[in-house]
């Protein structure tokens, strides 16, 4: 792998133990940075509003993203539609720090993801199982996140995806070495990546939790399940007191194993986002891109 790919994986390593927050304006970006976000995701509408508005959802206006880049010193990420390599070229041109090829936006291609090896800027991609995660890595993703179910405030799918990915990793570790070729075939991924999981017991890139995280307890749950950090989308700016909730989630990710502190952090946060239960969802974003 190239130097550039290593550097891109390295940036994700520096984000570990942190919270990446969705923001729609420079003002929100400043609130997020002030609250301790390790990066912000610049987008025009947060997932809950995308869900409410319906219609086609696309890459954000580069001018709006630039405004956010100028407002904060932390890394700025932005989303492109699955398979939309032209949107990715545009974000690379404005020197975005990380591109999220995201199921939150309307997919531009129902078959092919972006060939991410052709880009210098790093990509993070969603996955709901190990096969998806390794296919995205084979395509050049240098960071993975669970898909979860964005814009719902319901953590159940993020939990399901994180548990499944980690269970499949344990299964590979318990596989006989000469059966790994078959595992690669079953997962539809390159043998070398299966081999790497077998040897290291982890994904070859950093893995964050995303989709439906709304409280400090949700963040602690995901960290205890093995996430290396969390994305919080709608959970912060759809809540009663965004700054306070954001600070609490940041601290919960650092001290996810300290229930006494978590109890303090969970106090008086005001109203959480209302949320939609899994069964009430009409559009499953996690089903986009496999």
């Amino acid at each position, binding site marked *: 792998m190239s*130097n550039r790919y*290593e*550097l*891109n994986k*390295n*940036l994700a*390593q*520096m*984000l*570990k*133990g*942190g919270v990446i927050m969705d923001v729609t304006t420079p003002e929100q970006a400043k609130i997020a*940075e*002030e*609250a*301790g*976000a*390790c*990066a912000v995701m610049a987008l025009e509408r947060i997932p809950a509003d995308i869900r409410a508005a319906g219609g086609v959802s696309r890459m954000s206006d580069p001018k709006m993203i630039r405004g956010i*880049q100028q407002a904060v*010193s*932390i*890394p*700025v990420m932005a989303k492109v539609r699955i398979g939309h390599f032209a949107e990715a070229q545009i974000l*690379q041109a404005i*020197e*975005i*720090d*990380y591109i999220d090829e995201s199921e939150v936006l309307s997919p531009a291609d129902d078959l092919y993801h972006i060939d991410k090896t052709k880009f*210098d*800027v*790093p990509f993070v991609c969603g996955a709901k199982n190990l096969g998806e995660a390794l296919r995205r890595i084979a395509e050049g993703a240098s960071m993975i996140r669970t898909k979860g179910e964005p814009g719902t405030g319901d953590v159940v799918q993020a939990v399901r995806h994180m548990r499944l990915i980690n269970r499949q990793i344990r299964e590979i570790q318990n596989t006989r070495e000469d059966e790994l070729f078959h595992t690669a075939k079953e997962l539809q991924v390159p043998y070398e990546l299966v081999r790497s999981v077998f040897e290291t017991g982890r994904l070859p890139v950093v893995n964050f939790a995303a989709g439906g995280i709304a409280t400090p307890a949700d963040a602690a749950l995901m960290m205890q399940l093995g996430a290396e950090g969390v994305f919080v989308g709608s959970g912060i700016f759809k809540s009663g007191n965004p700054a306070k909730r954001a*600070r609490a989630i*940041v*601290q919960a*990710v*650092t*001290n996810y194993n*300290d229930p006494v*502190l978590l109890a303090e952090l969970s106090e008086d946060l005001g109203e959480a986002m209302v949320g939609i239960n899994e069964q009430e969802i009409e559009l499953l974003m996690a089903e986009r891109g496999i």
Partner: protein
Amino acid sequence: MKIGVLALQGGFAEHIAALNKLGIPCVEIRKKADFDDSLDALILPGGESTVVGKLLHQTELFDPIQERIQKEMPVWGTCAGLILLADTIVNEPNSYLRGIDLTVRRNAYGRQLGSFYTQEEFRGIGKIPMTFIRAPLIESVGKGVTPLSFYDGKITAAENDTILVTTFHPELTDDTRVLEYFLRKVKQQAIRPSA
């Protein structure tokens, strides 16, 4: 010898892995109770300095750590850790823990596209691999601070009697020579008469 690694956010696991490789006992520092007198030295890892700076206050680790730095506990800061130790940060009225008289500029090489890898001389060690991730720049150093390495004519590592700082990330490579350099500094400090 026991080394504390500040584990609030960022690349702390990589420092711990390197210490484990050398068989040096170490502990993760996540809250005030973790930071006790048994520690001989502290490593401040890379990450986002704005995040770690805030968490230092929220976890009430700021004052005890600053006090130990003033009492000459050896500290190594990489990248964001350097920013926390710098006496002066360009374009910002406030600094964090302080302890080394130098002026640092955040994200001086630009965004992620400006991140790079190189190999350069490190004083007393030789040529070492250097990974720069959205790295800061040491613009100038004051009295009592010695530059240890350069890239493109700019200082990339420096030290005073007790503090070592690098704008790059030795912990992201397999090369542990900068860590060993720091451990020698810790040992020297242990035999010096205390301040």
